[in-house]
């Protein structure tokens, strides 16, 4: 494993960086969209690190998206709209989950579901957010005179968003905070009895996730130059569950990314089946849960890795 993992990561990084050299513009556009969805999936995986399957993802995704669309309409720089959308999401998340977290799992499910459903209604109903038609004509972001106005540049920006997200999540996972999160997932009662403030650590996890979900929304809006309510629907958030379980739920970073890639790319190439897309995704999830309960990366963990490890010359000792 020690040699294989960096090799796989290097190949993935190489493909990701060189993609614009051989990808069609269409493929590149979908790859950029995948970056957004991967960020949503990563946030779902983050929540699962404290045993919380979030259903509220669409809400913050939309808040980030609309914050960017509205503020850029008023001439605010894209780079400032990211923290603005993030901050609004963090504040509302804090208010909502201050009520929900101390009340147990049922309250968490209900609150997180209701908030996502409510927001997708709100986005469409408010006239200053463009109603159900949304806000279109969102400009490309710029740094000084450099504009992110080509497909390639936007793609690399998306890649950067994903990399920054992973870096921040990794810092959490490998810190004392991350260990407390793991303890909470494993046994909330034991975690409490060794002094972990379960509600507070879960709250920190939720707020970090909300911020990066909003950032994904901001990016999505400059990618498509539009904020449209139907994009920020409840379903978009629920799809992240599929990402994690298709990819492999024990891998909170690689799992959602692989899952987002598969769920976004494969239906795009089944053009005839565009309307069947939700059904195809559902079928894939059911198939995976039945035959590969640990997801695609579970196949790697359970089938391939032990075989490689068992080969005599590479045996660990």
């Amino acid at each position, binding site marked *: 494993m020690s040699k294989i993992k960096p090799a796989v990561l290097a190949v993935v990084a190489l493909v990701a960086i060189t993609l614009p050299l051989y990808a069609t513009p269409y493929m590149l556009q979908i790859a950029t969209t995948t970056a957004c969805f991967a960020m949503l999936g990563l946030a779902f995986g983050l929540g699962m690190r404290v045993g919380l399957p979030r259903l509220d993802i669409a809400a913050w995704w939309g808040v980030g998206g609309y914050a960017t669309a509205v503020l850029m309409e008023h001439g605010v720089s894209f780079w400032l709209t990211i923290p603005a959308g993030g901050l609004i999401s963090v504040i509302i998340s804090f208010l909502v989950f201050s009520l929900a977290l101390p009340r147990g799992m049922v309250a968490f499910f209900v609150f997180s579901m209701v908030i996502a459903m409510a927001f997708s209604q709100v986005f469409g109903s408010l006239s200053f957010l463009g109603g159900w038609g949304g806000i279109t004509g969102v400009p490309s972001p710029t740094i000084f005179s450099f504009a992110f106005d080509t497909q390639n540049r936007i793609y690399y920006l998306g890649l950067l968003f994903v990399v920054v997200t992973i870096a921040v999540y990794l810092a959490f996972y490998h810190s004392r905070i991350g260990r407390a999160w793991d303890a909470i997932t494993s046994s909330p009662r034991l975690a409490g009895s060794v002094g*972990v403030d379960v509600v507070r650590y879960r709250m920190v996890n939720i707020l970090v996730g909300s911020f990066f979900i909003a950032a994904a929304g901001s990016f999505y809006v400059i990618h498509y130059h539009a904020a449209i309510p139907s994009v920020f629907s409840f379903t978009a958030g629920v799809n992240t569950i599929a990402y994690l379980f298709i990819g492999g739920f024990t891998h909170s970073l690689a799992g959602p990314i692989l899952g987002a890639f598969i769920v976004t790319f494969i239906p795009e190439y089944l053009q005839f089946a565009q309307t069947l897309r939700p059904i195809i995704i559902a079928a894939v999830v059911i198939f995976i849960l039945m035959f590969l309960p640990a997801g695609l990366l579970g196949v790697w963990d359970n089938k391939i890795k032990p075989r490689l490890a068992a080969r005599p010359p590479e045996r660990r000792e």
Partner: protein
Amino acid sequence: MALLEIENLSMNFGKLQALSGLDLTVSEGEILGLIGPNGAGKTTFFNLVTGTYRGSGGRIVFKGEDITHLATHKIAQRGIARSFQQTFLFAHATVLANVMMGCHIASAVGPVKELLHTKAAREMDTRARKTALEIIDFMGLTDLKDEPAGTLPHGHQRSLGVAIALACRPTLLLLDEPVTGMNPTESAEMVARIHQIREKGMTIVLVEHAMDVVMGVSDRIVVISLGSKIAEGRPEEIKTDPQVIEAYLGRRGTLDVA
């Protein structure tokens, strides 16, 4: 001096009165055995003291501070640690990671430093690791330190439960059936360790069904039955107390097999 004072503590689950007006004092440095027939309220008592349950009445005072309404993690931070009757462990993590988790309170350096992995955070990690290894060695688990906790034999899992509690560096250690399911050798080792833990300055309250262990290890014994205290005294006094014998005889036969 009284470390823990329980005044008139009550707890009902619906109509069931699990504890009714329990008064109890734990002195600093003692080993107190808490016994009683099944359903007497022993584990309920632990759950109340550690804030897992909220009592229906009464007061819990620890080091002079009223902790009756504090949350579990705050009670842990004030110096009360426990082991569980059911084996609660971080099953997928290694023995070492489990015990290091017990060091959670003591190893804080602030979130920013922890996230940036500054020198202070890394030094704290090293220190927590060292403490954890010492505790693992003390509990006789050194050979198993890299094994996932869930794969350990039952006796070792119970030792690990105590190790995690010890890593919290408590003033008061609550042990819920620490030798249950252990063979005689393991059990004798645990008794020796309980004495050593006390010598390190900790106060211990012990709930245990194995009478020979409780009688052997405790300085003082409190007997509860049906949620109330029915007797209190040194082990030899308790053994011959007619009320105690009756409480046990009425339910389980004799004291020896209880």
